[in-house]
């Protein structure tokens, strides 16, 4: 690890001021991803600003009936918050599907959004990687790419976003509150993470100099018909091959509103408005679910080791929609997929 200057920020304005004009500075909150990357010298900040003393640790009701989650709320605290468990159980479930309890105890809400890909070649500084070193090439396209993207990838990068929490936040249409030198702004969740295109070094649309202060949940939590289904190489403590977050509103057997987002398949949590339109007004049955999966996956493309994920994703979508429609969400402790 290279040496760095360590500083503490006392409030949001102080944090923004300390970051301003220093592209080699980084904020640290939980540090579970940043410190790992610093050890590998994938991240080489010369200044690390500790934001753990900022007053961003509350889960509060919003005026419109949603919740505002402070950026420093730890993943465990968010998953176990009674309001989250009751009103946004898909979010609690997705958080508990990720990492380990030790990591969830450290990891922050804001940091979860900003974690980097777990592509092996991104971590291996001996290999080319356009995300780590723009212009050096992508070792994953012709390398071991079992974990990699089947949707929205580019010739420059086929990495996936590793978060489970973000898949639920995408489905819930959360909003990301950020503050920079020029003030505050709100970013829709769908616009927060980027596709790789020819700039895979940029994971998000957070500007240099900005800090995430909160994640806002809209009132609709899909607390009755939801699921978070995650399929991975181990039963626990592994990144998703494919995951699906679902929220349905039903009237009898008819879907009045249906949303689903996929994790493990793209550079960002993946939603498709056409696939969700294929659910609306339709009976909640296998035929409807298969059609929605087909729409979402119509442009999917596999590489040497991950082509299986296209069919796996199709099956996961159908299974997850079925779980949600039945009101039988996936248990994250019993691994049995019903």
């Amino acid at each position, binding site marked *: *690890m*290279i*040496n*760095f*200057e*360590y*500083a*503490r920020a006392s409030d949001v304005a102080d944090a923004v001021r*300390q970051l301003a004009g220093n592209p080699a500075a980084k904020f*640290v909150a*939980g*540090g*579970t991803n940043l*410190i*790992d990357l610093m*050890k590998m010298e994938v991240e*080489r900040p*010369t200044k*690390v600003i*500790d934001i*753990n003393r900022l007053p961003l640790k509350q889960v509060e009701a919003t005026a419109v009936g949603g919740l505002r989650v402070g950026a420093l709320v730890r993943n*465990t605290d968010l998953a*176990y918050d009674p309001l989250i468990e009751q009103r946004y159980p898909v979010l609690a479930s997705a958080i508990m599907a990720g*990492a*380990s*309890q*030790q*990591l969830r*105890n*450290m990891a922050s809400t804001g940091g979860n959004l900003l974690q980097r890909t777990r592509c092996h070649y991104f971590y291996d500084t001996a290999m080319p990687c356009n995300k780590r070193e723009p212009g050096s090439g992508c070792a994953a396209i012709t390398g071991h790419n079992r974990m990699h993207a089947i949707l929205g990838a580019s010739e420059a990068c086929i990495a996936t976003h590793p978060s489970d929490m973000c898949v639920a936040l995408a489905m819930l249409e959360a909003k990301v509150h950020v503050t920079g030198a020029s003030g505050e702004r709100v970013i829709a969740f769908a616009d927060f993470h980027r596709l790789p295109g020819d700039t895979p070094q940029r994971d998000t649309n957070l500007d240099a100099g900005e800090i995430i202060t909160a994640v806002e949940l809209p009132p609709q939590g899909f607390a009755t018909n939801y699921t978070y289904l995650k399929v991975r190489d181990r*039963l*626990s*403590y592994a990144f998703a091959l494919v995951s699906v977050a679902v929220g349905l509103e039903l009237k009898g057997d008819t879907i009045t509103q249906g949303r689903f987002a996929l994790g493990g398949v793209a550079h960002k949590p993946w939603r498709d408005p056409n696939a969700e339109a294929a659910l609306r007004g339709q009976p909640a049955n296998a035929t409807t679910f298969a059609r929605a999966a087909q729409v979402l996956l119509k442009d999917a493309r596999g590489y040497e080791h991950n082509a299986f994920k296209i069919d796996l994703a199709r099956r996961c979508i159908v299974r997850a929609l079925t779980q949600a429609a039945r009101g039988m969400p996936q248990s*994250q*402790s*019993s*691994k049995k997929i019903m």
Partner: protein
Amino acid sequence: MERSRVGARDKALVDKSGKQVGVYARTNDAGAFAWGTLRNPRALLAIQVDGFIMISDDEIGSGTAAFSVPVNLTVNGTRHALALDPRTTLLDVLREHLDLTGTKKGCDQGQCGACTVLIDGRRVNSCLTFAVMHDGAQITTVEGLAKDGTLHPVQQAFIDHDAFQCGYCTPGQICSAVALIAEGRARTAEEIRELMSGNICRCGAYTNIVAAIQQAMGRS
């Protein structure tokens, strides 16, 4: 040397002959000395190893102390006032600075759980956090669990159930299990397995570990 970035509070870093080298140190807003870096941050490592000294207008001192950040940690009830290189992980402070070698370094990447300790009662991977981030915190390691010569119920249960073979993961397993019981979320064996999945045992003692935790849960 990029002189333009050196301000009034900065101190020039020179070698023993008084010749300036291309780095400097300064106080930051927290009032602590920290490394400053210019062109080649890697050079800092060489300078520490080679024993360069740092001088300012009015003092001459050994570099290492001046580059460190003050931090207070209470470990197993004992308060320690430390001055640390900010890169030092909590794990390395425990093992290398405080000689508390019960906490183990396995992967050093947050993947194995051997380094699990409790910070203010919560289980964390001590390899993935800088000690300077925990000024004022209460740390509990495996050495702090037994009280007055009596093993913690989780320690006793691990012995009763032969819940280890080589023992390397055991301090992390035990600290993790102590926190798991305090969290109060695991009731069934499968819930214990899921919430203990951050602790790997390559000997495969999992069956006995779960049995030990179930015994300790019954007692607490």
